[in-house]
């Protein structure tokens, strides 16, 4: 009797705004503890069945949508945060929360005019608030729409901890990073297969003395070349970037440049040359080419970037604004851009995340199911998504 009443309540309130639903349903759910409420009722409150980001609106704010696992493998060979990947493996599903900054970005993207030069968006916020997840949401939307997605998972990986630095054969004073370049090429290939067949090169490229790629060959060949001969992988990356940029404003495809940790491109590196002198970012081929991509001198797409303090070098841990993290050089290079701040969880979003953990039986502690436990979690995590995730782990 109670169950059917609850079901009616949940379904009739389903179309309301997420927050109101949570508070109403919470009252209903907390009266029946743990197991008795059937799964569909719980799902209705925190989840949304809309798995196409194009159709996400404010109605879906605070709710989690599911990305099918095959799509995850296709769209995100790299780029998801490590802890989120572990969560996907544990729960056997990928649920991403729809939040306001992402909805804002999607609205801008939907309304942007692609004849104009590409608009730059910079997602910034404090540590652990969900900037990378917002970026991934946007990347998923764009790949669903059929854009060519150029996703650099973490630019900081290219400016630190590099074991091999080769002198570039193309330009004498630049340094190559074969390992990072080949890893990125492999992932890029797996996510954008069909584009690599469609796009043709417009110039002849020479790889060393004997090998070359003729004009008019599909870009896939360039990528194969980079993967086969690792020494020229960085140059292959540079070629790919340049070709894509030149052909994007023709209109045959839309281009999304998604860079996570863009402040790495203008900071300092922790790499040193053989004579122990520090390497500045311009001397790295990968960084040099990427900087060219992030300039807004091309049209037919968008550039969405994230600032990240976590991997950044020589920056204080309290820095999170664009000015602090990009430095003067980076700020001038990226100016003008649309800043998108990402805050901590709002009360409704917190409820929804907590409800999701409860429903997936991630919170095993008996006190975690009570209202007091929820208030305690909210206090201790400060509504910060990363803190909440770390707190809920041992529980």
């Amino acid at each position, binding site marked *: 009797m109670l169950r059917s009443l609850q079901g009616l309540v949940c379904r009739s309130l389903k179309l309301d705004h997420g927050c109101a639903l949570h508070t109403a349903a919470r009252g209903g759910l907390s009266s029946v503890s743990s197991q008795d409420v059937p799964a569909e009722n719980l799902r209705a409150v925190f989840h949304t069945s809309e798995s196409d980001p194009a159709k996400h609106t404010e109605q879906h704010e605070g709710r989690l949508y599911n990305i099918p696992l095959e799509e995850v493998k296709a769209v995100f060979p790299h780029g998801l945060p490590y802890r989120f990947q572990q969560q996907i493996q544990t729960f056997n599903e990928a649920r991403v929360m729809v939040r306001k900054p992402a909805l804002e970005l999607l609205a801008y993207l939907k309304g942007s005019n692609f004849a104009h030069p590409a608009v730059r968006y910079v997602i910034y916020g404090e540590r652990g608030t969900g900037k990378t997840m917002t970026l991934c949401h946007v990347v998923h939307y764009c790949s669903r729409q059929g854009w060519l997605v150029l996703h650099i998972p973490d630019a900081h990986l290219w400016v630190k901890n590099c074991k091999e630095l080769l002198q570039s054969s193309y330009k004498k004073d630049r340094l190559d990073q074969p390992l990072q370049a080949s890893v990125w090429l492999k992932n890029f290939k797996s996510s954008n297969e069909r584009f690599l067949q469609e796009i043709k090169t417009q110039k002849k490229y020479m790889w060393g003395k004997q090998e070359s790629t003729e004009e008019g060959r599909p870009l896939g060949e360039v990528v194969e070349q980079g993967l086969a001969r690792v020494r020229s992988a960085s140059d292959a990356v540079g070629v790919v970037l340049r070709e894509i940029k030149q052909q994007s404003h023709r209109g045959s495809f839309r281009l999304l440049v998604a860079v996570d940790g863009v402040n790495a491109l203008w900071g300092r590196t922790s790499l040193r040359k053989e004579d122990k002198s520090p390497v500045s970012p311009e001397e790295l081929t990968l960084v040099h080419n990427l900087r060219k991509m992030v300039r807004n001198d091309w049209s037919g797409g968008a550039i969405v970037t994230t600032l990240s303090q976590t991997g950044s070098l020589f920056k204080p841990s*309290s820095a999170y604004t664009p000015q602090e993290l990009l430095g003067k050089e980076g700020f001038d290079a990226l100016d003008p851009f649309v800043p998108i701040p990402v805050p901590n969880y709002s009360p409704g979003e917190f409820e929804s995340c907590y409800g999701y953990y409860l429903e997936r039986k991630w919170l095993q502690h008996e006190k975690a199911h009570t209202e*007091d436990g929820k*208030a*305690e979690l*909210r*206090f*201790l995590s*400060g509504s*910060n998504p990363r*803190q909440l995730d770390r*707190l809920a782990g041992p529980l």
Partner: protein
Amino acid sequence: LFSFFFFFFFSVQRKNAGASGPEKYTEAFIKKQIEEFNLGKRHLANMMGEDPETFTQEDIDRAIAYLFPSGLFDKQARPLMKHPTEVFPEQRKIQWGEDGRPFHFLFYTGKQSYYSLMHVSILSPEAARGPLNLAGSRWLTKIELEEMLVEKMSDDDYSRFIRLLEKLVALPCADLEEKYIQKFSKEVPAQLQKVLIEPLQYDERGVAFSTGEGRRKTASATAVVYDNGTGKITVNGIDILHYFPVLQDREQLLFPFQFLGRIGKHDMVCTVSGGGRSAQAGAIRLASAKALRSFVTEKEVEFMRQAGLLTVDPRVKERKKPGQEGPRRKFTWKKR
């Protein structure tokens, strides 16, 4: 004049405890000490510029603490000037006369005061008013009784005496002998009566708030707890998530609110200085618990006190001793 006073002062001090055998202070000696003490008291009052006639023991203590400041932790190790009866333990006077005959009839039992107590004679039973109310009082302990009688006794004797007192209380005409029984009982003051709880104050917006202060190790904190809040806490102008990145410190801050079940109901603004991160967290915890007392019933305040939320943590850094590397660590022992 100063050296004169100094001589008095040192003579009033207790002789060192390493002396062999129990001290035997003659009556004449005690009388002399009392005279010296009174004289010294007048000198001290003169030195401090106060009136010698109305110079009380509290004034003496204050004057001595002022003249001889000491940083020792143990209060009993500091310089003291008290009436000789408090300094020298009571001694039994000679209990037999010149002919060798003892004064008390129970002298040959060995414990004359104890057995005289055990044989209490009650006056004629008149109309009794009701049973004695002994709530909030306790019997004297064995040590206190020994001090009173100036006689040693065994545990068995003490328990027999307590049983006697209980029996006396149980008798119907107990209230007549109230005065006699009260000689052997002491009041137990309830802890809470000593502590004042400040009333709530109201700021311009009409929101109730209350302040509290706390200390831990070298850190001191003040906390202002506001009502009708969302659970936001600011420390020195910074959010707690940034000021205390470690979970343990945030749990310490959470404890008073969680104990009272008021986690999301109050806002708090604190200032803290000194100490390290754990000490600051402990200081803020104490300050917030003290501030929360004004919002809460007396019973809950008692619960908080029993939970240890209102107690100042007395642990401080122990001093390093000479001949050792630290407070407890000795130097590495080398066989040769």
